């Protein structure tokens, strides 16, 4: 008690603030979403200023956006979310084949998306240095591509663990968290696709 009283008198940085007002796991997810929104929001703000405030033609002539290829890529990524969901439903029903097949298909489709995006970059006909339009195009799609890469890394580990039998109906937290991230990446791509390619 006396020792504690002495402890209170010492100079020290403030104690970490914690209360039961919000669970740490929920707070962590909120902070994650908030940081992602701010990150993508910064790029979308640049997009808004370039396209709406400055009135930059979109796409700036003589360049063209490969809308059809991007649409096919969108379909691939959206389908990969369905296989991801199938994988999780399978593990919940103790179906290891569904889990493994679902994760493997998700990984392959994510990889296809990334490779197609790389091919698109090499054939699109402009580079990031070719004006504001090109810079924003590469920044937004590249930022998303980086997220897909992270998601693929997570998926790779999940798939390896699935093939090694680490998950079952009771223990599949690793698949659950990876699934949330993958769906989030998919939602972000739909937003990027709509703003960059469609609108």
């Amino acid at each position, binding site marked *: 008690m006396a020792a*504690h009283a002495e402890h209170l008198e010492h100079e020290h940085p403030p104690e970490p603030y914690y209360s039961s007002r919000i669970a740490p796991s929920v707070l962590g997810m909120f902070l994650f979403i908030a940081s992602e929104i701010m990150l993508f929001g910064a790029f979308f703000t640049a997009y808004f200023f370039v396209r709406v405030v400055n009135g930059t033609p979109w796409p700036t002539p003589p360049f063209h956006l490969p809308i059809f290829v991007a649409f096919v890529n969108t379909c691939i990524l959206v389908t990969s979310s369905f296989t991801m969901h199938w994988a999780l439903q399978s593990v919940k029903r103790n179906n290891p084949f569904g889990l493994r097949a679902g994760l493997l298909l998700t990984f392959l489709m994510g990889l296809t998306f990334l490779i197609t995006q790389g091919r698109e970059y090499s054939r699109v006909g402009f580079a990031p240095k070719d004006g504001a339009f090109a810079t924003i195009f590469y920044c937004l799609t590249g930022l998303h591509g980086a997220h897909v890469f992270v998601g693929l890394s997570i998926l790779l580990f999940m798939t390896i663990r699935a093939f090694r039998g680490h998950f079952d109906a009771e223990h599949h937290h690793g698949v659950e968290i990876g699934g949330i991230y993958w769906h*989030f990446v998919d939602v972000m791509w739909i937003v990027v696709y709509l703003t960059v390619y469609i609108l």
Partner: protein
Amino acid sequence: MRPLRNPLRSEAESFRFLLAVIVAALVIVGAAYLNTWLGVAAALLAVAGLVWWLMQEPVPGAAEPPRKVDPSTPAGQHKVLVVALPGTASVTVPERATEVVVVVPALASKLEAATGAVDDRRADAEQTALALTRRLSRPGVGVRGEVGADDPVLAAEDTMRLFGADEILVAAGDDVVEQIRGRVTVPVSRV
């Protein structure tokens, strides 16, 4: 303000949110095919619609009444939790108390709490906790002080979960006493 359901709470909810976004995207693509500005308007409506949908969804646990904290102290011990507002000069605890925890909430304004500028408020609370622990110290009784959350009721509840007192003494208003009574099963009295 209504609580907004976190659409990424689980994989299943994330997938459901994705499906809603796909539907919204199809509407936007259809509108943009007719006219770009129509597509922009559809996008704004879609975002508003998604937010409205998430606000209509029940937030898990939000409607449930808070579960009362029910501690169990070993026989022969009598733990007392003192909840005192910053600036409280003195309190008295029963003679039979064997262990006392003084918790002082770091009362901060909404602006201070929102900006995280609570260091001064926590320092105030720490000074009060220190003064009260010294005043309550006596042989055979373990006394310690803590700085609690920015709400006296929440500070009491937080401390109860870790400390598990047999009774709570509150050096605050009647409304605080009543609210704490609603959260715990042990006797709560005002001092």
